[in-house]
């Protein structure tokens, strides 16, 4: 029992540190949000969207902008650890390294889901679709959880490559595509009036992704970061 508590305390400390860095610098979330907004606007001109947007397009718009914006945060989260060899300090801590993974994944989850939740009213406003629904927020959080846990895992891989600045999206997008497709489908279903129960197969696919990627983090984070 004390072992579990100590583990959770380590996860909490890593998480708290990332929140604190973000709070003091305020550089991650604003950049992600502005970037996501730009994609929302860019879509309008690129695809000649009419204001009374189809439900499917609103769902796609939300997830594409969020997925792109999230890679900025994921990249930053791990490259901050590289500066001044902060990562070595983290790895020297006498805790299981998967605790570092869960702490960072939790931080990334919070940042991206905050951006996502802020996007909901904005997309609703500009595209005259009501995205402010509780089931939709639940799908958003679940999808972000799956996406950011995979992203945290892969960012630890990409940071070790020479091409570290450009590698993460290339690794992340194809592996995350099934999750993103499921999230878009679930969001689209909700926007066209279906209930969560009717969309359960998509929700279960996202849930399965979230569980698998977190299990992969638990198993492999130690191996990825060993020197």
């Amino acid at each position, binding site marked *: 029992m004390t072992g579990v508590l100590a583990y959770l305390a380590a996860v909490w400390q890593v998480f708290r540190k990332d929140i604190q860095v973000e709070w003091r610098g305020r550089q991650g979330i604003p950049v992600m949000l502005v970037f996501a907004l730009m994609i929302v606007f860019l879509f309008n001109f690129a695809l000649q969207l009419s204001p009374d947007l189809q439900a499917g397009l609103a769902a796609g718009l939300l997830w594409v902008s969020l997925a792109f914006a999230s890679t900025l945060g994921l990249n930053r989260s791990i490259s901050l650890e590289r500066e001044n060899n902060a990562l070595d300090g983290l790895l020297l801590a006498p805790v299981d390294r998967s605790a570092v993974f869960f702490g960072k994944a939790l931080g990334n989850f919070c940042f991206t889901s905050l951006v996502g939740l802020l996007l909901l009213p904005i997309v609703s406003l500009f595209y005259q679709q009501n995205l402010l629904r509780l089931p939709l927020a639940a799908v958003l959080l679940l999808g972000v959880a799956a996406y950011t846990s995979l992203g945290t*895992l892969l960012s630890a*891989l*990409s940071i*070790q*490559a*020479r*091409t*570290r600045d450009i*590698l993460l999206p*290339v*690794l992340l*997008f*194809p*592996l995350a*595509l*099934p999750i993103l*497709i499921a999230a878009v489908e679930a969001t689209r279903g909700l926007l066209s009036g279906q209930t969560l129960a009717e969309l359960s*197969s998509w929700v279960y696919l996202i849930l399965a992704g979230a569980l*698998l*990627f977190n299990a*992969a983090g638990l198993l*492999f984070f130690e*191996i*990825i970061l*060993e020197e």
Partner: protein
Amino acid sequence: MNVLKKPILLVILDILTLVLVPAAVVLVVFFTPVEAVMGPVQKVFYFHVSAAWAGMLCFIIGAVTGGAYLLTRRLHWDWLSTSSIEVGLVFALIAILSGMIWARPIWNTWWVWDPRLTTTAIMTLVYLAYFILRSGLNTQETRARLGAVYAIVAVLTVPLTFFSIRLFRTIHPVVIATGGGDGPAFNMSPRMLTALFASLFVFTLMLIDLVWHRYRLAQLQYETSPEVN
């Protein structure tokens, strides 16, 4: 040096593959019936299914041997893992291209965003990224370690692709029909079935042969200049 000598078993496998691949072509072209509705283009199917099978088998071997590397930390396992993924990528591309050749007259388009086609494309992209990852890593040890982790995570796309025609509504034909599945079922005559199993067998042999050659290339590279790797 011992490793420079080509193993006798590989020589036998080479000859066997060189004889059996043309034999399979002859079998498919001349000895299978022409499908009543689709016509001769249906014959793409034998090598299409075989290539898809070989590709997926390669990716699974890549993940299993990647896991073996992480457990034993012997570079041999990494050579095997990366070799089979490289060969698997070629097979997957063959499966996609041959499928497109079939789809053009049958579906009247080169490509549709059908679940089976989409998941296959995703799987191929995932394994393309595997080589992008490896090419960015500096030492052989990191390439092996991170490549193995990636190969194990990436293999999740293989069951997703295989079962996609059973999970989702699709227009892709279901060949291995075990109940369920929305796709159109495909009933084969005994001679078609024989040709299918023959080409599956031949492609599996070819897979082993190619992976073995690619493995030897990695081995020889290491033996001749280990410090470069």
